[in-house]
């Protein structure tokens, strides 16, 4: 076995939590199969404070893979939507966090991520499933995405303020 660093353990643990949240999210029915609340993005939002850029990108990749495995969509077109949405939104969230730092809250970062993810998925839906009529589902899709991102962002904001685990990890990282 190759030696595994402490940061790799953190990546693996957060990826496992992404899988766990995907599992919880699976319980909630969706009007469209690729539509998600985004609960599994919580570990990525936390990781923005705890991991290096490369490790965050690795975590995003593992999240996509884990989601496909847990939800059993790895071999379906849903995976393509989910993967494209997650990869683009994750990268967008990372870039905004790096560029704006504390000037943008996790609610803002989460909203931007959801917007990017939903837009990418709408464009894919336009070309792969619905054709031009894809934009009919655009408004409700974006509204639901925005509301769920607001809720998740608010939750993530409270989590980083109140979590004992997060405080411990941050202390160790800074110390």
């Amino acid at each position, binding site marked *: 076995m190759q030696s595994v660093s402490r940061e790799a353990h953190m990546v693996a643990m957060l990826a496992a939590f992404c899988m766990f949240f995907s599992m919880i999210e699976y319980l909630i029915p969706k009007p469209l199969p690729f539509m998600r609340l985004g609960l599994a993005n919580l570990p990525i939002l936390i990781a923005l404070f705890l991991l290096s850029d490369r490790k965050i990108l690795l975590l995003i990749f593992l999240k996509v893979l884990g989601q496909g495995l847990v939800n059993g969509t790895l071999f379906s077109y849903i995976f393509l939507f989910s993967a494209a949405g997650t990869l683009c939104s994750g990268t967008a969230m990372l870039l905004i966090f790096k560029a704006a730092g504390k000037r943008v809250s996790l609610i803002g970062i989460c909203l931007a991520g959801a917007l990017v993810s939903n837009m990418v998925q709408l464009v894919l839906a336009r070309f792969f499933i619905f054709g031009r009529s894809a934009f009919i589902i655009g408004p409700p899709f974006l509204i639901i995405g925005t509301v769920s991102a607001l809720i998740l962002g608010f939750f993530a904001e409270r989590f980083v303020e109140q979590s004992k*685990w997060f405080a411990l990890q941050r202390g160790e990282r800074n110390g």
Partner: protein
Amino acid sequence: MDKPKFFLWAGMASAPAFLFQSDPLFRWIQVLLFISATIISGKKFRLLPNLLMTAGIIFANLMTPNGKVILSFWGFSVTQGALVNGFSRAGLLVGMIYLSRFSVRKNLQIPGRLGSLLSLVFFYFDRIVEGERVTRGNFMEKIDEKLMAVQKISIEDFSSGENPDHLSGGEKLIVPALVFILSWTLFTIPLLI
């Protein structure tokens, strides 16, 4: 090939037979197969959380009517399509959990850096699902406590393979081989009927 890897390959090779299962009933038979294999190979199984999860998924799916109404009470309609859909989705989720728990042994070591990382992800996922249930506090406190509990698992705990599987060498190879053969048999039967 060492034994944990044999479990992993058997699980991965069985996954398509489960994912592409067209018949919900046969999907649930596969679920029972994976649960049995998980128990035989020494991992815990709790009935109540799985029953609650199944009921939750079926109920959530019933909220979106689909197909013929088979039952109606207090203004709530149970439709056939939604019921079958919920039943099948619940089976998919429970089955994937147990297939993954069965396939990933504690001392699994996939070669390479990405392999090591994937082994770790599966290891932590198993600890999250198998670990003690957190009952105190609100949703956020529960997540926090779960993170603290999983964090306690040290690097040595992962690499030492503590709490090894209790099966003997021969049994270890028979169980994954049987899972593979039976899951593909169960996949094929509905196609032939």
